[in-house]
Every structure is written in structure tokens, then in C-alpha cells.
């Protein structure tokens, strides 16, 4: 497959099913545990519906924003997706609060109560995003299209479209394939965040997350 058959474009509402798949796949990070389902006491099937509902709200500036996603197409077929946004640019609001508002608006009250109980489990791997930095999140490449350089193409496309000086990306510490790719693209590990709660692995793919950064321009 030549690179000439690869097209990178902005996502539209029609891409929501693929973006849901992207978010679920990235949340699981090669494990059976999806934090959005386990922490919110919802089935995976119901969580997929709730993720779609959040995306349909068309809120900009966070990882549940259709407008944050770029799509890679190979010969006209959707093959990969990746979110990217500049932190704090939208309404001057931290993306974490936009995300929290979306979840609070979409998920049932019982889920919010469940999360409140489980807060101590995940607080150790909550990474504060740097205002003004490009945030790269939720990468997924369809298994049929792996090994074609789509992940790198999407990351470079987000960086090329932004005008910021720094990009940040987070990965679960055991996701060696992703971390290797990010290193290859110029990202360096800057800090490891670890949850020491004994129940962490009941809810999340791994107990540690790595923050990686790349300086784009001075």
C-alpha cells in the first residue's frame, strides 16, 4: 500500500461509530477493562451508547469532541482515528471540566455516585493537562490497517495543524508498542503517575500512566 492512498481528514458526525470504537479500544489499552465502564458501573454495551451520546452533543475542546478527531482513510475506507486539541482553548475551560460536564450530563446519577466512591482508585493516574499544549489522545488503528504508518501520519497531522510549542500524550505504562511509536516521533517520557490503590487493576488496564512530551517549536 502506498502512502498516496492515505487521506487524513477532520472527523464528522458520520464518523461517530468509528470514534466510539476508537475510544473503547484506547480506554481498554489491550486489556479487557474499560475505565469508562468499570468506574461508572455500566456495561460495555451501554457505555458505547453513552460515548456516542456525548459525541453527539458536539462540545468542542476535549477528548469527547468529534471536532478533536482526525480520521485516516485508506483507499476511501476509514482506517484510523486520533483526537487532538489545544488544552484550555475552548471557552477558556480545562478539558477535564468539559469532559466532566459531558459525563455528568449523559451518564445516569448512579454512575456519578459510583465514580465518587472510586475516586481514590484513579486519582493517582489523573494527569493534569498543560494549558496551551496540544493534547493527543485516543489512538486507534483498525487491525486490518496496522503497519501502514497511519498512527504516525495522524500524530504528525495534528502537530502540523496546531500552532503551539508543545504536545503531550499519555499512555498506560505497559503499552510498549504505543510508547515506542511516540519515542520514534520525538516524544520523551517526562513523568510516571501511579495508583497505589490495591483495587486499581479491577478497573483500569494498568496501575501506571506515563506522560510524554514533545517540543514542537520554540
Amino acid at each position, binding site marked *: 500500500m502506498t502512502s498516496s492512498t492515505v487521506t487524513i481528514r477532520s472527523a464528522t458526525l458520520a464518523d461517530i461509530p468509528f470514534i466510539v470504537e476508537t475510544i473503547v479500544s484506547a480506554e481498554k489499552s489491550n486489556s479487557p477493562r474499560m475505565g469508562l465502564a468499570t468506574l461508572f458501573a455500566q456495561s460495555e454495551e451501554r457505555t458505547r451508547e453513552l460515548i456516542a451520546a456525548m459525541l453527539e*452533543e458536539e462540545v468542542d475542546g476535549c477528548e469527547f469532541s468529534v471536532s478533536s478527531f482526525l480520521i485516516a482513510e485508506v483507499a476511501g475506507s476509514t482506517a484510523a482515528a486520533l483526537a487532538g486539541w489545544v488544552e484550555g482553548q475552548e*471557552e477558556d*475551560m480545562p478539558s*477535564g471540566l468539559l469532559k466532566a*460536564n459531558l459525563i455528568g450530563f449523559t451518564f445516569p446519577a448512579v454512575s*456519578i455516585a459510583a465514580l*465518587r466512591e472510586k*475516586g481514590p482508585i484513579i486519582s493517582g493516574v489523573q494527569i493534569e493537562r498543560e494549558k496551551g499544549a496540544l493534547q493527543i489522545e485516543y489512538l486507534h488503528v483498525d487491525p486490518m490497517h496496522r503497519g501502514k504508518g497511519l498512527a504516525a501520519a495522524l500524530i504528525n497531522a495534528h502537530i502540523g495543524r496546531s500552532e503551539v510549542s508543545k504536545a503531550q500524550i499519555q499512555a498506560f505504562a505497559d503499552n510498549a508498542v504505543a510508547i515506542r511509536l511516540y519515542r520514534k516521533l520525538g516524544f520523551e517520557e517526562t513523568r510516571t503517575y501511579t495508583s497505589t490503590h490495591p483495587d486499581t487493576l479491577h478497573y483500569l488496564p494498568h496501575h501506571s500512566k506515563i506522560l510524554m512530551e514533545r517540543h514542537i517549536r520554540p
Partner: protein
Amino acid sequence: MNMQREELLPRIRRTVETVLGHGDFEMRDDLTAADVEGWDSLTHMSIITGLEKEFSVKFKLKEINKLKNMGSLIELIQAKLAGA
């Protein structure tokens, strides 16, 4: 209902304190979540739902996505209670 700001403040403060487990913040208009220890994406959901319960109101997503600080939160609750 035209509830005065002075009546709202203690109730908002109490709701936030209940979620965060501390009252180490001033109820000033320019207070933001970033100024308050523990007011993060996790606790934010509980604060918003707690306020809806406290004042028997329902916020729209667009309304809470525009909240800049405590001042705009107080204004929003006042508007909701006034039926705006």
C-alpha cells in the same frame, strides 16, 4: 423565586465542601476550580449534580460549559431559580 445572592452563597459553599471534604476556599466571584484543592474533573461532576439537587434545578450542558468562575455559577443558579 428571586433568591438573593447572600442566601445562595452558604448553600453553594456547603455543597462544594461536602464533595471536597474541606472548606479551604473563599467564595469570591473570580474563584475558579483550579484555585480550589481537589476541585478536579472527578469532583466537578459531583459538585454540579450536588448543586442541582440542592437547588432543585437542572442545568443545560451549554450553561455549565460556559461557567468561568464562582461568579458565573452564582449568576446561573440565580437565573435558574428566577425561571430564566
